[in-house]
């Protein structure tokens, strides 16, 4: 017998693409870009998985999803089973299948990726989760009997939603306090409809409510109640998952001209407030013809692609380093390029210029070159003397990162923060300096990813459970 074992056989089929809207068409609408796999495509892709005995992909996943098993279930035609398998470890698979940086996680370590292309784990995750949302009936998961304990969750983003799901299943009462009028945090105010349809987030929130999670919108903790008041008002523990919601500006002259937005404002207007449907929705938004977006992360790509969809003729990404250092997901950069976003690399804005009415009308920029690596390991951009030039723009979106909102730390005296204002918490448990108070997600780490925030929510849920039952 000369047959090689099936495990060593090279895959015959290439990595399957998701069908998606044509770049020219989608650049003018807010519908989701990829359509997702059909069952046939999903099975074709699932068949590429080698079902490794010691799968590195599971280790590459921040919440340790049993990736080979859910892929096997897809191959077996048991799509709802695949979704259930995903949900054992990941409460938001329809979200993560869309916004996780898989190329830096599970897919990065996939054995197939060594010589060819890795299994499209994210696309398969999305397929299984979407199938369940479309076809699945609500099945009450295994719920522990009520413990009589109550947990207050501050913030309804990925960390808070994950933690709420875990704790309610363990039998605790859970109330989520959300500052905005809609639950979902960055998933609803930040990430655009064309990348993450809001109906998908709403379905996840609805699911938690069916499990018994109480959702209180319009509650700014630190204002309506302090953390101490929550603890005094019958909550046995508090989880702070408030995110990194404070916008950062460049601190250059002219930044307060009209038409200069923080990415938070621009995306909140468009996504949460649905300004792209103005005047059917009341919130207006500026529609720049020549738009500069400052920064190179996912938020910058989202802002640039939103500006295009709102009718801009030219949208520029202005980034002070080179293409290699762009922090955005490869897929987002690729989609942006396809849609016609123009990149100005090695460019640093030094001043915004305005007209008499106070509207931005241009931006003075400086060319940069890359020097020695800095503390982040990336080559530090250095200004090129005498290289200043003017970029003609009538709108600017500043997407250079966010910071910690001081509202909760400033009203919770015994809560320790670091020099940037982020809450100090044990990375394994989320425990803060204050008894019964846990924290996780961007408010601890600074801006990171949805899946890392979910991982932090999961760990904190375990720790809170121990704390409550101990």
């Amino acid at each position, binding site marked *: 017998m000369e047959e090689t074992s099936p495990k060593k056989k090279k895959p015959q089929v290439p990595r399957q693409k998701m069908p998606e809207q044509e770049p020219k068409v989608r650049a003018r609408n807010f519908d989701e870009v990829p359509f997702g796999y059909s069952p046939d495509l999903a099975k074709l892709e699932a068949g590429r998985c080698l079902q490794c005995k010691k799968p590195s992909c599971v280790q590459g996943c921040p919440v340790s999803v049993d990736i080979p098993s859910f892929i096997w279930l897809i191959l077996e035609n048991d799509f709802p089973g695949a979704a259930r398998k995903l949900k054992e470890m990941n409460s938001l698979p329809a979200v993560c299948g869309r916004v996780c940086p898989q190329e830096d996680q599970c897919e990065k370590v996939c054995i197939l990726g060594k010589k060819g292309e890795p299994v499209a784990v994210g696309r398969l995750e999305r397929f299984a989760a979407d199938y369940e949302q479309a076809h699945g009936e609500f099945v009450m998961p295994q719920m522990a009997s009520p413990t009589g304990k109550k947990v207050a969750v501050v913030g309804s983003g990925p960390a808070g939603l994950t933690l709420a799901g875990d704790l309610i299943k363990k039998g605790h009462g859970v109330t989520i306090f959300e500052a905005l009028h809609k639950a979902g945090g960055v998933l609803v105010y930040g990430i655009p409809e064309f990348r993450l349809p809001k109906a998908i987030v709403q379905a996840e929130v609805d699911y938690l409510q069916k499990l018994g999670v109480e959702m209180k919108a319009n509650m700014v903790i630190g204002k309506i109640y302090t953390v101490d008041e929550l603890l005094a008002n019958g909550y046995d523990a508090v989880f702070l998952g408030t995110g990194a*919601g404070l916008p950062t500006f460049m601190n250059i002259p002219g930044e307060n001209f009209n038409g200069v937005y923080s990415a938070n404002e621009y995306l909140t207007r468009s996504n949460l407030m649905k300004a792209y449907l103005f005047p059917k929705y009341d919130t207006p938004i500026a529609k720049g013809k020549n738009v500069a977006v400052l920064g190179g992360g996912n938020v910058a790509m989202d802002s640039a692609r939103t500006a295009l969809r709102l009718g801009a003729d030219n949208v520029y990404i202005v980034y002070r380093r080179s293409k290699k250092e762009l922090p955005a997901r490869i897929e987002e950069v690729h989609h942006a390029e396809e849609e016609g976003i123009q990149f100005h690399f090695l460019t640093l804005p030094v001043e915004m210029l305005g007209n008499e009415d106070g509207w931005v009308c241009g931006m003075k920029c400086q060319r940069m070159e890359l020097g020695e690596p800095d503390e982040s390991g990336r080559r530090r951009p250095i200004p090129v003397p005498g290289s200043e030039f003017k970029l003609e723009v009538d709108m600017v979106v500043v997407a250079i990162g966010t910071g910690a909102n001081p509202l909760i730390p400033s009203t919770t005296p015994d809560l320790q923060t670091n020099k940037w204002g982020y809450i100090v918490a044990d990375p394994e448990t989320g425990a803060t300096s204050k008894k019964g108070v846990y924290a996780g997600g961007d408010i601890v780490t600074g801006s990171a990813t949805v899946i890392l925030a979910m991982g932090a929510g999961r760990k904190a849920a375990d720790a809170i459970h121990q704390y409550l039952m101990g």
Partner: protein
Amino acid sequence: MFQIVEARRLAPSVNQFKIAAPEIARKRRPGQFVALRINEEGERLPLTIADADPVAGTITLIFQEVGKSTAQLGKFKAGDRLSDLVGPLGIPTHVEKFGTVVCIGGGIGIAPVYPIAKAMREAGNTVLSIIGARTKDLLILEEEMRRVSTFLKVSTDDGTYGYHGFVSDILQDLIDQGTAIDLTVAIGPVPMMRVICNVTRNRNIKTVVSLNPIMVDASGMCGACRVTVGGKTRFVCVDGPEFDGHQVDFAELVKRQRAYLEQEKRALESFKHDGGACRGGKC
């Protein structure tokens, strides 16, 4: 949903709502505001809390119909409900016994100045209040202001009631008469606040103004409400709404308030044209 328990018209296009919001009513302090959303399509509208009754569990909001959202809100009656209401937001007024405090309200700005005057009086201050409006019909809260003030002076731009002129003229008179003033609180249209600040700056009288720029989330997340104070960018929603009036860049504030003038006009016209509120199922 937040129910309007009482709706009253105070003046042409100026309305007062009492809204059931027991948690906010208990917590709110003078100078703070709420953000409300009429319905699913609505924008987030910031309004100062004019008064609150913790026992009845209500807050009082006073607003002028100027754009589409406030015009739509003006059609609401007692029993109607607002989709969203969040608060209390912003930093409360710093209230202590300063001595003599002049409280100045212009137009709809009388509504936010009222709770401050009341708190200043309760803290043991001599409260000299000056309120003004374009014309007699638009003057609001005169009785309420009189009740909480040591004395009250009234002006109208057109002379139909009280002093014929501006609130700043009355302030100037007070100063000229040698009145010792420890603090001035001025709330109203930007031009009014700017003139008041010019009057007090010469005499070195500390002057607090409350600003109402465009906001979106109103909790420090978006920066729409940024304003330059003493050369630094501040967010009105979380760093304010009250600032040292002598440090505020009013010219920038005016320009930023006008950022969406075109869209606002369009929205208001189409609202009036379409029969407005009737389409919202609210009348």
